[in-house]
């Protein structure tokens, strides 16, 4: 019920099944029949009491600040050509789906990538798994820049970078058994002899909480949550170091979402896998990822650890996003938080606004925002924000903080006396010195 995909799928079989003649009834009936294909007795979690069940649930993931990056992405770009529809199909523009983003994923840790639809977060995931060839930038993984590798050179590295997909209904080949799906990576990479594949598959099914005896069943015999587990098992087959999880739970029912999130955390603890966790649900990302990057129109506008982003957001977009999330427990304590309402819609990525891309909807926007793109500035030990008026909610500075770095005056006009700072970089990680917003200089806090 939750996702539009789900609904669409349910809608689809009713169109043609012709089983129930009246439209609303047909939809309803198909829905129930759909959930009925799931085996009600196949409860994966084994528990005796609530206490035990609770122990299987995890608390929020914790950041390991000493972890080395498993992947460092710098200035990554992906432009899709837009062709005219006329007689001659010329390239008339580019969708700047991802436009110069930099971040690191720590080894064994998780980075959350959040943003609204169309912000480029899924494209980023597909770039890292090299489903797309990047337009520019670098992705350093294991000492190699995988952005520039050919598909052939990429093959050995594919073991280390795997992906979990959003839609459990289209991400599994309906014509293959679960065993074939989960074992395919082994067969492709010729890692173990054919005879041992089955053993490994059963082991993996057990890891993801499925009955290992079900290896010769087909995906259509499993529920959405179980299918997602199969997808996870497939991604784990090659013992990857990095898993790109593209909205892994958004197509699932609420109660099933928690099962899958806990499973992903179990896996992280057991195998030390790092996640790039792409999602639009800020609460889930907060729980799952100690570090979060917020994207808007192909750019990272703010990135930092959980505390920085969720409690001390400095970018007005992050603040608006957070204030829009409904909060269950707030209602218990009483009332609702004040919301920052964003006007209008997200502009087209084909022709993004000049300067800061968020300025058309930003309550703080001034002249400088249209003239200069704000640099992604490190403003804390693990916190970067890209805003000329970076500041905590309600405490944004009156004058921009960036002119001296950019070599301009407060309105963004070129200041002949100033020189742009050399401290602005696109580096992926955090440095030991950062920009102090109060003093407007670089230094350690």
């Amino acid at each position: 019920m939750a996702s539009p995909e789900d609904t669409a799928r349910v809608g689809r079989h009713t169109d043609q099944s012709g089983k129930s003649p009246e439209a609303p009834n047909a939809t309803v009936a198909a829905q129930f029949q759909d959930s009925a294909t799931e085996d009600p007795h196949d409860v994966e979690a084994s528990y005796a009491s609530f206490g035990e069940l609770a122990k299987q649930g995890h608390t929020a993931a914790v950041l390991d600040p000493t972890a080395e990056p498993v992947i460092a992405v710098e200035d990554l770009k992906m432009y899709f050509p837009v062709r005219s529809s006329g007689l001659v199909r010329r390239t008339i523009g580019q969708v700047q789906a991802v436009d110069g983003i930099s971040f690191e994923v720590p080894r064994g840790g998780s980075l959350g990538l959040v943003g609204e639809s169309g912000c480029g977060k899924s494209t980023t995931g597909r770039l890292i798994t090299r489903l797309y060839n990047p337009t520019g930038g670098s992705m350093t993984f294991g000492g190699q820049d995988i952005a520039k590798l050919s598909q052939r050179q990429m093959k050995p590295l594919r073991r280390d970078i795997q992906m979990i997909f959003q839609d459990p209904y289209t991400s599994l080949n309906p014509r293959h058994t679960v065993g074939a799906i989960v074992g395919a990576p082994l067969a492709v990479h010729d890692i173990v002899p054919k005879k041992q594949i089955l053993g490994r598959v059963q082991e993996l099914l057990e890891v993801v909480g499925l009955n290992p005896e079900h290896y010769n069943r087909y995906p259509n015999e499993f529920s959405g949550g179980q299918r997602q587990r199969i997808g996870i098992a497939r991604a784990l087959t090659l013992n990857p170091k990095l898993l790109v999880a593209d909205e892994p739970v958004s197509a699932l029912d609420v109660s099933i979402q928690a099962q899958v999130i806990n499973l992903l955390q179990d896996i992280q603890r057991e195998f030390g896998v790092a996640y790039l966790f792409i999602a639009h649900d800020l609460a889930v990302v907060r729980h799952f990822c100690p570090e979060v990057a917020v994207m808007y129109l192909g750019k990272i506008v703010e990135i930092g650890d959980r505390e920085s982003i969720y409690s001390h957001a400095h970018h007005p977009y992050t603040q608006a996003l957070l204030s829009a999330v409904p909060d269950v427990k707030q209602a218990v304590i009483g009332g609702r938080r004040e919301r920052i309402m964003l006007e209008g819609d997200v502009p087209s990525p084909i022709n993004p606004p000049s300067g800061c891309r968020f300025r058309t909807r930003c309550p703080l926007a001034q002249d400088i925002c249209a003239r200069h793109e704000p640099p992604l500035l490190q403003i804390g030990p693990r916190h970067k924000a890209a805003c000329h008026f970076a500041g905590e909610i309600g405490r944004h500075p009156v004058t921009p903080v960036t002119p001296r770095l950019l070599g301009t005056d407060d309105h963004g006009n070129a200041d002949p006396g100033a020189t742009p700072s050399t401290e602005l970089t696109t580096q992926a990680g955090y440095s030991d010195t950062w920009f102090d917003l109060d003093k407007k200089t670089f230094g350690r806090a």
Partner: protein
Amino acid sequence: MTDSIIQPRAHQMSEEGAYLAVENLTIEFPTPDGPLTAVNDLSYTVGMGQTLGIVGESGSGKSVSSMAVLGLHDTKRTKITGSIRIGDKEVVGLSESGMRKLRGNAVSMIFQDALAALHPFYRVGGQLAEAYQVHHSNASKRDARRKAIEMLDRVGIPQPDRRVDDFPHQFSGGMRQRAMIAMGLINDPSLLIADEPTTALDVTVQAQILDLLQDLQREFNSAVIIITHDLGVVAEMADDVLVMYAGRAVEYGTTKQILSHPEMPYTWGLLSSIPDVQSDTSARLIPIPGNPPSLLNPPSGCSFHPRCAHVDKVPGSLCSTTLPRLTPASIGTAHVKRCHLADPDAIYQREVLPEIAPDLVEEN
């Protein structure tokens, strides 16, 4: 059903002037695999100016029950028993023409996917005007168009006099949902049913739509039912909450009661399986094990018992043999629950809350 003895009245205020009163509603569909009871003995009320949130998983019957309020089920293929009273009118068994006078007029509905719910071939303004004209037969085309523009303006669509001639696909997702709301409110309905109105939308747009709905409700003083799977939406929007599982109401009360003192393990499960955007990071995410049940072959006794982690606290095999009645909760007067647990609130406060919201425990 003996449950009908207890008439749940969630909100004290609405006891007198309930605009919509659903009593012992049961909806059954014949399917090739046998009859399927999608809604079973459901009762609730909504008063003018009040908002009821109905929460549940896929197939819990939340949409089916509200579609029955509008009589949208095929009468030939659906067995509906019980009573639905809108104002003073009994809707169950009402003729098609009588039903039609209510639909879109006294009661209107907003659907989840506005792109699919608006006709792709007709202009937005035309679809709004049509909704107006069908209940205002003496209104001219011009009046209807003026009304459409006025409503588009009311829901915050910029340049409504120009956008009125757009087709739905020319609108953005948020604007389509606004247009849907404008269509729902064009005849000034007393009851508005919003079926997952924000599920397909981004979170900032969702916030806009929810705010809009609240403002409009205040303005029109209508009764609102909001159907959702998102407890956060309910927490922000609703005065009362009805939690449904496998076609039955399992818990019903004021939002504050339900969210702070839930007494049914399924509600606990819902609360514990979603993280909160501000909660303590030491809160655990505890899923509900297993999958939603089949309604063709529902579990015996309490339909939640195969997934319930607290069955061991109920003596004997009561949970799997006997369907618990809707009984008053231990805390609060306007609060009923369907559970065999003897002192659910204590269990919640002692066992569940420390795991899922340790910060809230300390406050108590």
